[in-house]
């Protein structure tokens, strides 16, 4: 690929040559961040990179909100009886924790930040296919979040993020604004997915065929397909619940012949693929980070690429495994159980490929790679407990207990969040032109990892013991594991806050880098750090022999170990 040489465009400060009223400021290279610093240029930006940065800010806000609720919940759970907050407040908080974390953080986080920032760079394009729709996506999200916050301030829903009927259609808590907020955010999710699909299909640089695409792109592509096809379903279903609440239409009301189980089917038809919307992008990040720090081609490119599509497809067929004890027929349960086993194979194949990427590579340790190591353990453990839960008879005692809670937190936090942090540290120099303190970021990562494992491993065990989820009060015998979980949760929180702090400090005072500090062969690194507004000078063309994992011989990597 013909790289764009990061030309040092000095900023001319005076119009009349030779006349200098003031001493010229140091030559500052124009990039996407500083070429126009007006408020309007940010609020109405059509630049995919700026939009990615905006998403980063929004995601930090959303995660902090959801995390704040989580800490309060865990603090309450130190005691088995009433403590700190009332039962109603607790119920509302776990609902909001779930709603914010699932719909307003996990679904948009990696596609919104990295998908937006990186996709055009990786494809050699100037922007995504529909920049205006891209901005609209952000505003849909913000509007949706505002509705949800408004609902929260007025007490908040207490239905759980799963909104099961008839409880959700009859509870007097503030459900409708939150439903509407999720609906709008979902609309934004569809728009983003549509944007990415079209971008990947139509805006690849000349010479960039599908089998040369970075694996990140493949995973984002699969994610976008799910977003486009599954999200309308949840949108419609939540709208139906809102209708029933507002107008009393009784769609899911047994007294009027409605079927609460129909709601569950429709809800999970989206929400199971939704977990793949959350995890596929994390896999996207893992592929890139592992390849870069191993300086090696991913072991089994096609396996990783096609398994993403496999997950997207088979993921649509397994929703009934959330309903094994809901009252579907034994036959249906068997079918869903069987299909659920198949979907796990794709992830298994990927793990072997990622680990194998280090084979005959040249591996440099770094914070991003540390997060990936954590990912390896946690994703396999979390994923296989998922297979365990899908084993029908085992689900009967586990369903609705903390075992399930632990399983999905292992995947959501242990896998997705860890991958996100890996990606954030990896692409930080590209996004902001600076590096961070390796020592402190590693310290934060260790704290977060230890905290995480302690928090949620305890929850596997207390689930085994029989403690149901969404419990304000619990039987005394569950207390010791709850206390352990809470203590580690504080550690996790501190680790994450430290990680954020390290990056914030680096944003302003970190050592500046101009170009590809990691020596990655990824196409996105051919742009400058940070990139210019148009990404590249002229139109990049992909040569026959180049690809994003073309690591040849060892070179001196500028950013030393």
């Amino acid at each position, binding site marked *: 690929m013909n790289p764009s040489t990061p030309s040092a465009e000095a900023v001319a400060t005076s119009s009349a040559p030779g006349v200098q009223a003031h001493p010229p400021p140091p030559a500052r290279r124009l990039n996407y961040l500083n070429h126009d610093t007006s408020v309007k240029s940010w609020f109405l930006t059509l630049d995919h990179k700026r939009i990615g940065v905006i998403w980063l800010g929004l995601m930090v806000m959303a995660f902090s909100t959801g995390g704040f609720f989580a800490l309060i919940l865990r603090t309450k759970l130190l005691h088995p009886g009433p403590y700190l907050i009332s039962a109603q407040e607790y119920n509302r908080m776990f609902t909001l924790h779930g709603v914010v974390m699932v719909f307003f953080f996990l679904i948009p986080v990696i596609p919104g930040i990295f998908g937006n920032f990186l996709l*055009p760079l990786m494809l050699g*394009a*100037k*922007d*995504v*296919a*529909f*920049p205006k729709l891209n901005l609209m996506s952000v505003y849909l999200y913000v509007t949706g979040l505002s509705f949800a916050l408004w609902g929260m301030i007025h007490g908040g829903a207490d239905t759980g993020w799963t909104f099961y009927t008839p409880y959700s259609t009859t509870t007097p808590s503030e459900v409708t604004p939150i439903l509407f907020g999720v609906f709008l955010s979902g609309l934004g999710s*569809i728009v983003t997915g*549509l*944007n990415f*699909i*079209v*971008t990947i*299909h*139509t*805006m690849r640089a000349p010479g960039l065929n599908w089998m040369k695409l970075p694996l990140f792109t493949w995973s984002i592509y699969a994610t976008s397909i799910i977003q*486009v*096809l*599954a*999200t*309308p*379903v949840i*949108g*419609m*279903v939540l709208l*139906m619940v809102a*209708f*029933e609440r507002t*107008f*009393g*239409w*009784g*769609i899911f*009301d047994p007294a*009027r*012949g*409605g*079927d609460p189980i*129909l709601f569950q*089917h*429709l809800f999970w038809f989206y929400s199971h693929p939704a977990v793949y919307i959350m995890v596929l992008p994390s896999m996207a990040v893992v592929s890139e980070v592992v390849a870069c720090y191993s300086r090696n081609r991913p072991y089994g490119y096609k396996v990783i690429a096609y398994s993403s599509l496999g997950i997207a497809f088979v993921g649509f067929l397994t929703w009934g495994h959330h309903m094994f004890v809901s009252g579907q027929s034994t036959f249906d349960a068997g079918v869903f159980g069987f299909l659920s086993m198949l979907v796990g194979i794709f992830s298994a194949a990927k793990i072997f490929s990622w680990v194998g990427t280090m084979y005959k590579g040249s591996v440099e340790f770094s914070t991003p790679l540390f997060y990936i190591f954590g990912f390896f353990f946690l994703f396999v453990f979390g994923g296989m407990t998922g297979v365990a839960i899908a084993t029908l008879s085992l689900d009967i005692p586990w369903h609705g207990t903390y075992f399930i809670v632990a399983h999905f937190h292992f995947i959501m936090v242990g896998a997705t969040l860890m991958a996100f942090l890996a990606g954030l540290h990896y692409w930080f120099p590209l996004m902001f032109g600076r590096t961070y303190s390796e020592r402190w970021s590693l310290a934060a990562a260790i704290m977060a990892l230890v905290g995480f494992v302690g928090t949620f491993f305890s929850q596997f065990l207390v689930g085994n013991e029989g403690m149901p989820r969404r419990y304000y009060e619990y039987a005394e015998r569950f207390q010791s594991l709850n206390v352990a979980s809470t203590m580690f949760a504080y550690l996790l929180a501190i680790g994450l806050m430290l990680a954020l702090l390290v990056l914030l400090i680096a944003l302003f005072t970190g050592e500046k880098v101009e170009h590809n500090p990691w020596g990655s062969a990824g196409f996105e690194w051919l742009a400058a750090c940070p990139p210019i507004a*148009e990404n590249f000078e*002229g*139109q990049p063309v992909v040569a026959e022999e180049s690809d994003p994992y073309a690591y040849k011989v060892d070179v001196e990597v500028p950013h030393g170990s």
Partner: protein
Amino acid sequence: MAAEAVAATGHGAETGPGHPKLAHHYESLERQAHANRFGVWVFLGSESLLFAVLFASYAQYRDINASAFALASRHLNLLLGTFNTLLLISSSFTVALATYYIKKNNKKAVLTLIAVSMLMGIGFIVIKGFEWTADFNEGALPGRFFHLEGVPFQGGNLFFTCYFLLTGLHGAHVVIGLVLLTWAALRVQHNTASASYDLPVEIAGLYWHLVDLIWIFLYPLLYLV
């Protein structure tokens, strides 16, 4: 900066008033058109799934309440429903003709055909309005408001819940389709859509066809039970 971009892409001749605008991040009009067209197809896929939810709910409830659904369906105005179906199918035909004529650059034919299609679409909405009014008066209403004579409450109320959700969502999409047709007509009028760049007409046409297709599923399920 903009001038540089245009020069770099090398086709200043096609931009300017009266010609479709090339967005800055595309290097050619063909690529822009291709991307837009592709995007519309993806969007239509998304829309189909929106309706799929309601179809699934309908299927489930009809399975449980087969006879009540049949009884309730009798109370719909079959004549108006059939006429509406013919209207919509005809309007799809005229829209298809419009996409044909735009390729021949026959501006007058295109505008006429779009106008006719829109009139039929408006007619559809008006007739729907009459149907709904009749339903309100008869008591054929969703959920707890249901009080139609001769149809059992259980099953009857669900039929009309499904009916109003389906036709309501569909009607909203007809309105969106009308807006898109207006937009396409305006583009044709101002010569920013023509044989060389027929995308607006094509997009409006595709959307209209989807709306029609959804109705073709709705009609037998609701009226011909």
